[in-house]
């Protein structure tokens, strides 16, 4: 059943192995950089996520960046976090983004404001990520605002994404929470960056036991490591991550850390392709997005060259 006019939904609906990428908008008011990036990436990915002030740092808005990408021919998935807006502002932005051609939204709680460049800001968290998913679904399927008021015409019909973090705790509840998100209306799932493949395999096994992979496509998150410093940062500083020491060590010992990072990422994608229930990959190469075409080519997942899942 097609719910929206999203191209990503069509790809996933055809059971083609999907590739999405993550783009962090700039900390200034020019879109030139992301438009160039869209040109580089558009033939290699099905859609691009635009982060919403990631790690609580002020950046060009995800909706505005999404419109630039859309115009440049790269389908955007706008991220919306619960940190900065209440239900009124969120719904208003969802109407506005839809009117500008945006069809995919990814719903997240958001990194706490403490991590960013305005730690004194008041965190909003009027809704949580699951309530946000439910609200976006009701805009589409029931044509009602969160308060229950009917949307008389032109209700926005989004393809709704949610995230899952197999590396957060309590581990055994993570699959159940994913199920809560699916029940609330998530149409697709993107996961946190995977480095601990064993844990992810276990997670997917639990997903399959509950049949969740048949309800929604799950895109596995990967992150090409650019340097030993980046690996250590991921391991020690990013909330909710697990990076095994052996991976940090491998990058640290490499004569060419970038080449090692690419090789590792390609190998991870090869592995993920074989896991039942993985419908695609989500490549998070923040500040290194230009490397994505090479990774996509080498992993053999370029759109038009899809393995079935």
């Amino acid at each position: 059943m097609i719910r929206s006019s999203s191209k990503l939904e069509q790809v996933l609906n055809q059971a083609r192995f999907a590739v999405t990428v993550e783009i962090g908008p700039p900390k200034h008011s020019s879109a030139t950089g992301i438009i160039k990036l869209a040109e580089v990436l558009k033939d290699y990915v099905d859609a691009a996520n635009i982060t919403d002030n990631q790690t609580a740092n002020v950046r060009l808005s995800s909706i505005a960046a999404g419109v630039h990408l859309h115009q440049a021919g790269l389908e955007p998935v706008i991220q919306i976090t619960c940190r900065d807006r209440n239900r009124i502002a969120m719904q208003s932005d969802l109407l506005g983004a839809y009117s500008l051609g945006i069809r995919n939204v990814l719903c997240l709680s958001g990194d706490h404001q403490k991590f960013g460049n305005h730690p004194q800001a008041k965190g909003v968290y009027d809704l949580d990520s699951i309530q946000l998913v439910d609200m976006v679904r009701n805009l589409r399927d029931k044509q009602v605002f969160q308060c229950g008021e009917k949307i008389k015409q032109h209700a926005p019909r989004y393809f709704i994404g949610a995230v899952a973090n197999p590396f957060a705790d309590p581990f055994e509840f993570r699959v159940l929470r994913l199920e809560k998100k699916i029940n609330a209306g998530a149409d697709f799932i993107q996961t946190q960056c995977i480095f601990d493949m064993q844990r992810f395999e276990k997670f997917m096994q639990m997903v399959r036991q509950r049949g969740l992979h048949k309800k929604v496509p799950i895109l596995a998150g990967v992150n090409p490591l650019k340097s030993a410093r980046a690996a250590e940062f991921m391991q020690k500083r990013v909330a909710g991550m697990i990076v095994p020491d052996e991976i940090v060590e491998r990058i640290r010992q490499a004569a060419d850390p970038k080449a090692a990072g690419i090789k590792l990422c390609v190998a991870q994608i090869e592995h993920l392709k074989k896991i039942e229930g993985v419908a695609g990959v989500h490549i998070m190469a923040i500040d290194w997005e230009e490397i994505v075409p090479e990774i996509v080519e080498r992993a053999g997942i370029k759109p038009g060259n899809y393995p079935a899942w």
Partner: protein
Amino acid sequence: MIIAKPKPVAKLVEFTEKFDKILLVGCGGCASVCAAGGEKEAAELAVALRHWRQKQGSALAVSTAIITRQCDAQYLDSIAKQVTRVDAVISLACGVGVQFLAECYAGKPVLPGLNTVLAGGAVQAGLWEERCGLCGNCMLHQTGGICPVSRCAKSIQNGPCGGSQHGKCEINPQMPCAWHLIYEKLLATNRLDLMMQYRSPKDWSKEHSVGAKPVRKKVLP
């Protein structure tokens, strides 16, 4: 109970620099219990303020008083005489006490000596923790008696979020993740069905921050 913390002495020096005579008013309620604004703290602050002014080469007359509860109008008259003799009053109560005093002695500057921080209790000697978010819509029956509004950094209703690891909150490795505690409690009491239950968006209009709301109760004459 309301938990408050003393403002830095330097801040109170700044508040009082234009005055010669001040009255420090302690509160016998929560502020005493949390060791922020009782008799002892008032006496110590008086010494500090006098000493500071002395170093500047002048004198500040500081007297002290204690009121049973500053948030209760019936106790406020007890300091009426002392108030007439000073230029300003510093209240060592929570924000409620400061306002009750300011209303009672409207002609006199009444300044806050404390920062009011949370509703909570002592978990060990000298350590107080937040336990209530004053949301006006208690959900503790669904969460194993653990409050996610005050104890989750994002006040989420369907946790834990993806930042919870090893039982701790993403914002502070010392702070337990409230939703992890809730999960363990519900697991132990065989109520995981409550974890799976979807809780719809909370009605924040019942919350403390939405204007000054009266609470009425019929009082027998």
